[in-house]
């Protein structure tokens, strides 16, 4: 690093590219070791197929169109569920953060519901919705609701009261106060909620699709298990990891764009 710094390269051109590559060293190394272990027979392919076999399985599924269709179905379920649960959680967080009455009315109830693991509702949800789309959306929305609700509420409640007083002194209306002081102040906390929620979103979807679905990545994995297609099983798991990483990166980019004022986002 110090060597690169000492060469007078324009900063911000080469360095980020190298920084961006560093994070991929470990995953690539693991894949390489995995490949070697499989080829040499150190790991039997019945236990774990070689990465090349997984890629090959992926290629076949891609050609048949099955892979894209299943990824699309899962992605669609995840986003719609996230949007529904996230907006409801955000709305409750806003209402309970801004209004004492609303908080008194609903917070205790929500805290009680929160302590029920949402995946425990799967049997009930299957009874209600069957293995319909709405079952998956319901579960994802429920799982996503709480982290977003809690963090929005926390964010609004912890906005510096001195800033709110300042806003009032300078004659801000309620709307302006919300837009210029309260919402931006709560945003870092809301983002924490979003990132938590993204994790829960994938988790919920995997479980729901594995148990009760007729399409999607989880279903694809379960089907493959039935036919002993271990390469497809591993492929589905890898795709989940990739999608999770993608969602996390998207929220990071959004965070960086909206929180550029924050000292933590000003370096680099």
């Amino acid at each position, binding site marked *: 690093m110090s060597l690169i710094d000492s060469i007078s390269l324009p900063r911000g051109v080469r360095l980020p590219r190298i920084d961006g590559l560093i994070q991929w060293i470990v995953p690539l190394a693991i894949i390489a070791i995995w490949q070697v272990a499989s080829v040499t027979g150190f790991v039997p392919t019945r236990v774990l197929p070689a990465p090349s076999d997984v890629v090959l399985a992926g290629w076949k599924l891609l050609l048949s169109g099955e892979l894209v269709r299943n990824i699309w179905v899962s992605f669609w379920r995840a986003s719609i569920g996230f949007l529904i649960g996230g907006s409801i959680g955000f709305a409750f967080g806003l209402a309970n953060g801004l209004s004492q009455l609303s908080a008194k009315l609903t917070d205790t109830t929500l805290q009680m519901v929160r302590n029920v693991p949402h995946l425990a509702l799967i049997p009930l949800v299957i009874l209600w919705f069957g293995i319909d789309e709405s079952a998956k959306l319901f579960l994802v929305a429920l799982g996503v609701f709480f982290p977003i609700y809690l963090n929005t509420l926390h964010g609004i409640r912890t906005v510096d009261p*001195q*800033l709110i*007083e*300042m*806003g009032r*002194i*300078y*004659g*801000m209306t309620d709307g302006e106060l919300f837009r*210029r*002081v309260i919402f*931006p*102040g709560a*945003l870092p906390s809301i983002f924490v909620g979003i990132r938590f929620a993204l994790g829960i979103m994938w988790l919920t979807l995997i479980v729901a699709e594995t148990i009760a679905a007729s399409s999607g990545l989880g279903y694809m994995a379960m089907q493959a298990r039935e036919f002993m297609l271990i390469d497809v099983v591993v492929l589905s798991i890898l795709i989940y990891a990739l999608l999770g990483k993608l969602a996390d990166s998207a929220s990071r980019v959004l965070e960086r764009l909206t*929180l*550029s*004022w*924050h*000292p933590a986002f*000003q370096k680099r």
Partner: protein
Amino acid sequence: MQTALRTSLPETELASRANFAPHARVVREQRPVEAGLPLSIRGLRKSFGDNEVLRGIDLHIPAGQFVAIVGKSGCGKSTLLRLIAGLDKIDAGSISFGQDTQPEDIRVMFQEPRLLPWARVLSNVEVGLGRDRASADADTRAAKALTEVGLTDKRHQWPSVLSGGQKQRVALARALVSRPRVLAFDEPLGALDALTRISMQRLLERVWRDQGFTAILVTHDVTEAVALADRVLVIDEGRIAHDVVVNAGRPRERGSAELASLEASILSHLLSAEDRT
């Protein structure tokens, strides 16, 4: 007003006053005195629960005067300032400014800069425009206020990259941008280091002389009070215990014998109040 103030000066300061007086008069005439508002406080009381913080304050502040309020912690000086600024409700008595005031006429500056961390320096200053925030010349006015406090080049920065003194100057620009007629300071320099504090004092004095608003400064620093104010009020147990006129000319010579003796006499008032408790 001038003559009244002079006659109340202690005899010992006559000699040095002769040097300051002509200069002081010139400065006074240059200042737009009509910019400030006079302030009349009658029988002002305020309690928090059982604790009576202000027990009958009667005070007249002429337009454009720079008044410093000193007193030991908990004497009610900050409460008085908050009442003047309209931040808390009055229990009894009245505060009047001689005429109808707009919200933008009275501004407060606190010990903490209270800048919005997510707004650039210029937008933070625009907040001070109050109802004129949306007007077309908001940017120009805010930029002008920033120039007044010497921070023109920082307008596009985030507050988090500024030093403590610079943040406080942005807060001052935000208070000044609406051209207030009364400016209340609640220990605005309390959190700054000694050198920054002195340069901020000079800045406060300069903008006050340029703009002629009525200034009310709450401070625990008696040196600061005599360096800046026309008049120092000592508050003790919810009442005005002493009303001391500082008649040194401006710009003031820090550490002069005149200011030092005044400072010593105010400190002795404060210490005697402290001893009683």
